[in-house]
């Protein structure tokens, strides 16, 4: 009986759920410009389970391979936002509707000006 009781109350370590990354998403101060857009629109998913974009520097962004300095139109990061040239998959953010034009342009400008 004791063994069965133990089985019932078996608790694993750190279960994953919807709130697992709330500390990263909502606990850190929000940046400015592109960092603020990424914080508001991307970190909700891109923290832990789909890469970890919180607090990346420009140099770290380049190493992800998602952005090509000076070439936003060919950067996968930009292409996925509106599914430009990529058919069939959902645009980003998934389920969140399309990014407003001014935010989209701000992200393009940021990549255009990366060293």
């Amino acid at each position, binding site marked *: 009986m004791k063994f069965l009781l133990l089985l*019932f109350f078996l608790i694993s370590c750190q279960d*994953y*759920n919807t709130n697992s990354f709330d500390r990263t*998403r*909502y606990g850190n101060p929000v940046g400015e410009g592109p960092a*603020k857009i990424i914080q508001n629109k991307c*970190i909700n998913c891109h923290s832990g389970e789909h890469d970890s974009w919180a607090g990346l520097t420009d140099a770290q962004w380049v190493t992800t391979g998602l952005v090509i300095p000076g070439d936003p139109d060919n950067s996968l990061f930009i292409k996925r936002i*509106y599914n430009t040239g990529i058919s069939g998959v*959902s645009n980003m953010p998934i389920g969140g509707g399309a990014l407003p034009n001014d935010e989209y342009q701000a992200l393009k400008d940021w990549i255009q000006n990366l060293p």
Partner: protein
Amino acid sequence: MKIFVLIFLTTLSLKSFGYANFIGHGYTSCLNCHFNPFGGGQLNDYGRVVSGTGISSRSLYPDSMTEEKIAHISGFLFNKPKQNWLRLQANYRGFELTQNPGGNSTKSWLTMQQDVRLTLKFGENDKFIMSGDYGKTPYPLKGSPEEKYDTYRSRSHYLGYRFSPKFGLYAGLMDKVFGIRLLEHNAYSRIATQTTQNDQVHGLTGHFLNDKWESGLQAFVGNLTQDDDLRMKGVTGSLERTIFDFHRVGVSYQNAKNEYLTLSSYAVFGKFNFKEGSAILTEIGQSTQVTKNQSDDRTARYGILQTYLRPWRGFYIFNNIEYLKNDTKLDNYSVRWGPGIQYFPLQRLELRADLYNTRNFSSENAIPDSWMLITQLHVWL
């Protein structure tokens, strides 16, 4: 035992089973077939018998296989239970996900569920139960190097006591009591309200049931395996009324918070029985979240409509339409729709296929639709 089985068989036309759409078979409460009065989880003896003799097809059985024989092999590992206090169940659910079918498609196989379930039950009419499960859970596509979490876990473990057929109390890890417990864990109604497949909480839950009303009230302290600052603590409740003897309408409310997020959710829903296994499920709701760094403060609204048709025993055709406005401050919204089929060729075997089209609407941009085909295999013992 024979008389017991025969009574069930003769009243089959009035009975129902696991998934919420099974209200189409006449049952309004999940308690009849599940140990968890709010549905999901392990089937009780009655649920097993009905799954074999009412839900599943018998076309693969010879004519000599009577319904009584099917009922007798409905127990764990095809055995009739030899004692009254221990029940076991094992489950596997996996699916192939095809993105952009027919075009530049990508395929992947995902294991959604792989677990064992155990229930101990004692007393008259199983007044006291201890129930739980343990198994493998879906692994996030890319894990964070900073976070460690188990892929083997328990999604439910609780004690339950029925003071009477009308009232029971349950303590432990359970799903939150909110809205319609849809099978589709990625439904907008479940994502917006944080009631997805991993959002179980430790708490105390009361279940109330009489001829016309059914309700649940739950106070919870989050998932105790998580760090304290991440645990969502709060209350949730649901109230349902049977109308015209066969249908259910209800309301739900949730309020929960951790150190970074406060969430309030409301929903109105209906489950309608169109006889012979056919049903309509619908829910509309709103969820408001306030975040500590104010990076994602918003109110989301959702709606879902599912229609089920059962042309013959064991086979269901359904259609799913969902709406999500992720932020009421914006004019963007998403609509997801698609048909599906569900086939139970034998007891313990479910085959299912769902086709999804997702369309995002925006006043500023035209976004291509996305398509997904999900073909699912579910096996249980």
